[in-house]
């Protein structure tokens, strides 16, 4: 039951993109086509889950016992950067088709604040390892969901006549605002 609440609140109510504004840069950058946004979403699910597990272990078995909790930011960002590199190398060797699909998005994820944000959030919320994993997966799914819906909307822009000043980024922001408004309808759910 607890897990279901975590999942629903992370995907719909507190959507990481539309309610918490984490990961807006890739949201604007790679959301012009549905196919690229699906690739990016899959890569985020993969990396976010892995990064949250590793950083949770580091926090509870390294930083807390040695009382160096203030090293959180520095150690997390290094671990995430190293992890992304490692995943890239392993994927290239083990599963070339998967690497083909996710490869280009992996380096982008290092600077995705959603990954670091979720890793810090699970510590702030004091979740245990299993809850953290569920929380990370649910947030990543919420991210992918918003990204794919948004890409679908943006694909339709080419068919309509948008005023000159609103073309490109401004209309994208307004659309994102309306999407966020729609997601606010889930607010009473949990």
């Amino acid at each position, binding site marked *: 039951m607890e897990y279901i609440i975590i999942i629903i609140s992370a995907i719909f109510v507190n959507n990481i993109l539309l309610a918490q*504004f*984490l990961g807006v840069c890739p949201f604007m950058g790679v959301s012009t086509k549905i196919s690229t946004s699906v690739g990016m979403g899959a890569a985020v699910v993969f990396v976010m889950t892995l990064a949250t597990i590793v950083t949770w272990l580091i926090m509870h078995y390294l930083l807390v016992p040695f009382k160096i909790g203030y090293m959180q930011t520095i150690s997390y*960002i*290094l671990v995430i950067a190293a992890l992304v590199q490692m995943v890239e190398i392993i994927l290239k060797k083990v599963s070339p088709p998967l690497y083909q699909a996710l490869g280009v998005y992996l380096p982008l994820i290092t600077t995705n*604040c959603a990954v670091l944000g979720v890793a*810090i959030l699970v510590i702030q919320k004091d979740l245990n390892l299993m809850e953290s994993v569920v929380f990370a997966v649910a947030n990543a799914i919420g991210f992918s969901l918003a990204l794919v819906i948004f890409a679908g909307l943006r694909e339709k822009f080419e068919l309509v006549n948008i005023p000159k000043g609103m073309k490109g980024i401004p209309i994208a922001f*307004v659309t994102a605002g309306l999407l966020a*408004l729609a997601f606010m309808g889930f607010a009473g759910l949990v």
Partner: protein
Amino acid sequence: MNNLQNFTKGFFKENPVFVLLLGLCPTLGTTTSAINGMGMGLATMVVLVLSNMAIALIAGAIPSKVRIPSYIVVIASFVTIVDLLMAAYFNTPGPNGELSLYDNLGLFIPLIVVNCIVLGRAEAFASKNGVGASAIDGLGMGLGFAMALTILGAIRELLGSYAIFGIQLVKSDGMLVFVLAPGAFLALGYLIALLNKIRTSK
């Protein structure tokens, strides 16, 4: 490019938020009021100036293959310093039990480390220029970022609660949606459209 141009380019011509569209997460996430926006902008500015200076000093000694991880460590160190300083000095709740600035910014302070502006300036400017020029560049870009966040925060606060910098202008509740998440996207979208219009009509 002289120092003055270096300093002023961040305000309009290369404004990190309105023109380059960098650092969007804190821009949208922390601008619920003018004070919060300004606080976030100034915290980022401090990190930007210090990391630019430090990186300009050590850039010659770092092999180019490991420069990005090294820059990130430098930036993360300054972010940690700013985080601890803000936890110590900007952490007093308001008289009516309002959240302190530190609590309002919350997660976004450690996230300065992944703000593309900071790493972007390190790579594009500080690694190729001297300490003085890098400091001026960081100050200009940082002030431009703080200015953008303050403007956006002021607009959202004005529309959302009819107040500015916490001073109530009209005794009414305001359009709450502008303080909530959708308002951030809407306000920034229309603001960029307006600036595009001004820039192209010149």
